[in-house]
Protein backbone atom coordinates (compact mmCIF):
# COMPACT_ATOMS: atom_id res chain seq x y z
CA UNK A 1 0.00 0.00 0.00
CA UNK A 2 1.21 3.47 -0.84
CA UNK A 3 0.22 4.70 2.60
CA UNK A 4 3.00 2.47 3.90
CA UNK A 5 5.50 4.48 1.84
CA UNK A 6 6.99 7.53 3.54
CA UNK A 7 8.39 9.97 0.99
CA UNK A 8 11.53 11.92 1.76
CA UNK A 9 12.37 15.34 0.36
CA UNK A 10 15.43 14.01 -1.46
CA UNK A 11 13.09 11.85 -3.55
CA UNK A 12 10.48 14.54 -4.19
CA UNK A 13 13.06 17.06 -5.39
CA UNK A 14 14.23 14.64 -8.08
CA UNK A 15 10.76 14.72 -9.65
CA UNK A 16 11.56 18.29 -10.68
CA UNK A 17 15.30 17.90 -11.25
CA UNK A 18 15.97 19.13 -14.79
CA UNK A 19 19.72 18.97 -14.09
CA UNK A 20 19.65 15.19 -13.67
CA UNK A 21 17.33 13.74 -16.33
CA UNK A 22 18.11 10.09 -15.48
CA UNK A 23 17.15 10.65 -11.86
CA UNK A 24 14.07 12.64 -12.86
CA UNK A 25 13.01 9.73 -15.05
CA UNK A 26 13.67 7.19 -12.27
CA UNK A 27 11.73 9.34 -9.79
CA UNK A 28 8.79 9.68 -12.19
CA UNK A 29 8.62 5.93 -12.80
CA UNK A 30 8.80 5.14 -9.09
CA UNK A 31 6.21 7.83 -8.35
CA UNK A 32 3.77 6.35 -10.87
CA UNK A 33 4.05 3.02 -9.06
CA UNK A 34 2.68 4.74 -5.97
CA UNK A 35 -0.40 5.96 -7.83
CA UNK A 36 -3.57 3.94 -7.79
CA UNK A 37 -2.95 2.26 -4.46
CA UNK A 38 -3.80 4.94 -1.93
CA UNK A 39 -1.55 7.91 -1.32
CA UNK A 40 2.02 7.93 -0.04
CA UNK A 41 2.75 9.43 3.36
CA UNK A 42 4.75 12.49 4.29
CA UNK A 43 4.83 15.09 7.04
CA UNK A 44 4.56 18.87 7.33
CA UNK A 45 8.32 18.91 7.93
CA UNK A 46 8.84 17.25 4.53
CA UNK A 47 6.54 19.83 2.92
CA UNK A 48 8.66 22.60 4.41
CA UNK A 49 11.88 21.00 3.18
CA UNK A 50 10.33 20.54 -0.25
CA UNK A 51 9.57 24.25 -0.60
CA UNK A 52 13.06 25.17 0.62
CA UNK A 53 14.68 22.73 -1.80
CA UNK A 54 12.61 23.86 -4.76
CA UNK A 55 13.51 27.52 -4.24
CA UNK A 56 17.18 27.13 -3.35
CA UNK A 57 19.76 27.89 -6.07
CA UNK A 58 21.52 24.76 -7.33
CA UNK A 59 25.23 24.57 -6.45
CA UNK A 60 27.74 23.74 -9.19
CA UNK A 61 31.19 24.40 -7.81
CA UNK A 62 31.33 28.09 -7.03
CA UNK A 63 28.38 28.77 -9.35
CA UNK A 64 24.75 29.02 -8.29
CA UNK A 65 22.32 27.89 -11.00
CA UNK A 66 18.58 28.70 -11.11
CA UNK A 67 16.44 26.80 -8.56
CA UNK A 68 14.26 23.90 -9.65
CA UNK A 69 11.21 26.19 -9.52
CA UNK A 70 11.25 29.44 -11.47
CA UNK A 71 8.83 31.25 -9.14
CA UNK A 72 7.31 31.11 -5.68
CA UNK A 73 3.93 30.39 -7.30
CA UNK A 74 5.23 27.25 -9.03
CA UNK A 75 6.91 26.03 -5.84
CA UNK A 76 3.74 26.74 -3.87
CA UNK A 77 1.74 24.77 -6.40
CA UNK A 78 4.07 21.76 -6.05
CA UNK A 79 3.85 21.92 -2.26
CA UNK A 80 0.07 22.27 -2.39
CA UNK A 81 -0.16 19.14 -4.53
CA UNK A 82 2.18 17.27 -2.18
CA UNK A 83 0.00 18.43 0.71
CA UNK A 84 -2.85 16.44 -0.85
CA UNK A 85 -0.92 13.21 -0.20
CA UNK A 86 -1.31 11.50 3.19
CA UNK A 87 0.12 14.13 5.51
CA UNK A 88 0.65 12.90 9.06
CA UNK A 89 1.33 15.08 12.07
CA UNK A 90 4.64 15.33 13.86
CA UNK A 91 3.39 15.01 17.42
CA UNK A 92 5.09 15.56 20.75
CA UNK A 93 5.55 11.79 21.11
CA UNK A 94 7.15 11.70 17.66
CA UNK A 95 9.76 14.26 18.65
CA UNK A 96 10.49 12.41 21.89
CA UNK A 97 10.89 9.17 19.93
CA UNK A 98 13.19 10.97 17.47
CA UNK A 99 15.48 11.87 20.37
CA UNK A 100 15.81 8.18 21.15
CA UNK A 101 16.29 7.13 17.52
CA UNK A 102 18.92 9.80 16.97
CA UNK A 103 21.06 8.31 19.69
CA UNK A 104 20.37 4.67 18.91
CA UNK A 105 21.16 4.90 15.19
CA UNK A 106 23.50 7.91 15.15
CA UNK A 107 21.17 9.81 12.83
CA UNK A 108 21.06 13.49 12.01
CA UNK A 109 18.24 15.27 13.82
CA UNK A 110 15.83 15.63 10.91
CA UNK A 111 16.58 12.10 9.70
CA UNK A 112 15.56 10.89 13.15
CA UNK A 113 12.38 13.00 13.07
CA UNK A 114 11.40 11.59 9.68
CA UNK A 115 12.08 8.00 10.80
CA UNK A 116 10.05 8.52 13.97
CA UNK A 117 7.23 10.03 11.91
CA UNK A 118 7.29 7.13 9.45
CA UNK A 119 7.19 4.62 12.31
CA UNK A 120 4.30 6.40 14.03
CA UNK A 121 2.37 6.46 10.75
CA UNK A 122 2.81 2.71 10.24
CA UNK A 123 5.06 3.09 7.19
CA UNK A 124 7.24 0.17 6.16
CA UNK A 125 9.55 1.93 3.71
CA UNK A 126 11.11 5.34 3.15
CA UNK A 127 11.75 6.53 -0.40
CA UNK A 128 14.96 8.50 -0.18
CA UNK A 129 18.29 9.22 -1.76
CA UNK A 130 19.90 9.69 1.66
CA UNK A 131 20.59 6.16 2.80
CA UNK A 132 21.51 5.60 6.46
CA UNK A 133 24.28 3.22 7.51
CA UNK A 134 21.85 0.28 7.64
CA UNK A 135 19.11 -0.35 5.04
CA UNK A 136 16.49 -1.20 7.67
CA UNK A 137 15.94 0.81 10.84
CA UNK A 138 13.17 0.11 13.34
CA UNK A 139 11.56 -2.22 10.80
CA UNK A 140 11.44 0.52 8.15
CA UNK A 141 13.28 -0.22 4.88
CA UNK A 142 15.13 2.61 3.17
CA UNK A 143 14.71 2.42 -0.59
CA UNK A 144 16.86 4.45 -2.97
CA UNK A 145 15.19 4.48 -6.40
CA UNK A 146 18.27 6.18 -7.87
CA UNK A 147 20.77 3.51 -6.95
CA UNK A 148 21.27 2.72 -10.64
CA UNK A 149 20.13 6.03 -12.18
Amino acid at each position, binding site marked *: MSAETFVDTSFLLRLYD*VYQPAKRQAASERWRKEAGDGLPTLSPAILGELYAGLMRPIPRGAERLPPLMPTHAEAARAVEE*AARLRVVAVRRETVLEALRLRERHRL*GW*WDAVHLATACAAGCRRILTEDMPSAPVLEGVTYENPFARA
Partner: protein
Amino acid sequence: MKNKTFRLRSELLRRAERRAAAEDRSLNELVESLLESYVSAPARDPIEAMLAQAERLAGERGPVEPFEWTFTRDELHER
Protein backbone atom coordinates in the same frame (compact mmCIF):
# COMPACT_ATOMS: atom_id res chain seq x y z
CA MET B 1 -34.46 18.38 -0.68
CA LYS B 2 -32.57 20.08 2.11
CA ASN B 3 -32.02 23.68 3.10
CA LYS B 4 -28.51 24.94 3.78
CA THR B 5 -27.30 28.39 4.80
CA PHE B 6 -24.17 29.87 3.17
CA ARG B 7 -22.19 33.04 3.79
CA LEU B 8 -21.06 34.66 0.53
CA ARG B 9 -19.42 37.93 -0.37
CA SER B 10 -22.17 40.45 -1.16
CA GLU B 11 -20.59 41.54 -4.42
CA LEU B 12 -20.16 37.96 -5.64
CA LEU B 13 -23.76 37.16 -4.74
CA ARG B 14 -25.03 40.29 -6.53
CA ARG B 15 -23.11 39.42 -9.72
CA ALA B 16 -24.26 35.78 -9.61
CA GLU B 17 -27.89 36.83 -9.15
CA ARG B 18 -27.63 39.30 -12.03
CA ARG B 19 -26.14 36.70 -14.38
CA ALA B 20 -28.56 33.95 -13.31
CA ALA B 21 -31.49 36.32 -13.91
CA ALA B 22 -30.14 37.21 -17.36
CA GLU B 23 -30.03 33.49 -18.16
CA ASP B 24 -33.52 33.02 -16.75
CA ARG B 25 -32.26 30.70 -14.04
CA SER B 26 -32.74 30.82 -10.30
CA LEU B 27 -29.75 31.09 -8.02
CA ASN B 28 -30.79 27.74 -6.58
CA GLU B 29 -30.58 26.11 -10.02
CA LEU B 30 -27.20 27.68 -10.59
CA VAL B 31 -25.76 26.39 -7.30
CA GLU B 32 -27.22 22.94 -7.91
CA SER B 33 -25.66 22.82 -11.38
CA LEU B 34 -22.25 23.93 -10.10
CA LEU B 35 -22.29 21.36 -7.29
CA GLU B 36 -23.34 18.65 -9.74
CA SER B 37 -20.36 19.45 -11.99
CA TYR B 38 -18.05 19.49 -8.99
CA VAL B 39 -19.02 16.08 -7.62
CA SER B 40 -19.15 14.51 -11.11
CA ALA B 41 -15.64 15.54 -12.09
CA PRO B 42 -12.95 12.94 -11.36
CA ALA B 43 -10.85 13.89 -8.35
CA ARG B 44 -7.41 15.12 -9.41
CA ASP B 45 -4.69 12.72 -8.40
CA PRO B 46 -1.89 14.67 -6.68
CA ILE B 47 0.71 12.20 -7.97
CA GLU B 48 -0.33 12.80 -11.57
CA ALA B 49 -0.61 16.54 -10.93
CA MET B 50 2.96 16.67 -9.61
CA LEU B 51 4.25 14.70 -12.59
CA ALA B 52 2.38 16.95 -15.02
CA GLN B 53 3.81 20.10 -13.44
CA ALA B 54 7.33 18.65 -13.50
CA GLU B 55 6.95 17.72 -17.15
CA ARG B 56 5.61 21.16 -18.08
CA LEU B 57 8.39 22.99 -16.24
CA ALA B 58 11.09 20.81 -17.82
CA GLY B 59 9.64 21.63 -21.24
CA GLU B 60 9.50 25.34 -20.49
CA ARG B 61 13.09 25.42 -19.25
CA GLY B 62 14.44 23.71 -22.37
CA PRO B 63 17.76 21.88 -22.66
CA VAL B 64 19.97 22.05 -19.58
CA GLU B 65 23.52 20.76 -19.26
CA PRO B 66 23.24 17.72 -16.95
CA PHE B 67 25.37 17.47 -13.83
CA GLU B 68 25.12 15.90 -10.38
CA TRP B 69 24.20 17.93 -7.35
CA THR B 70 22.51 17.42 -4.00
CA PHE B 71 21.37 19.34 -0.94
CA THR B 72 22.18 18.22 2.57
CA ARG B 73 19.33 18.05 5.05
CA ASP B 74 20.92 20.93 6.94
CA GLU B 75 20.87 23.08 3.79
CA LEU B 76 17.14 22.50 3.51
CA HIS B 77 16.75 23.88 7.01
CA GLU B 78 19.03 26.90 6.66
CA ARG B 79 17.35 30.23 7.30
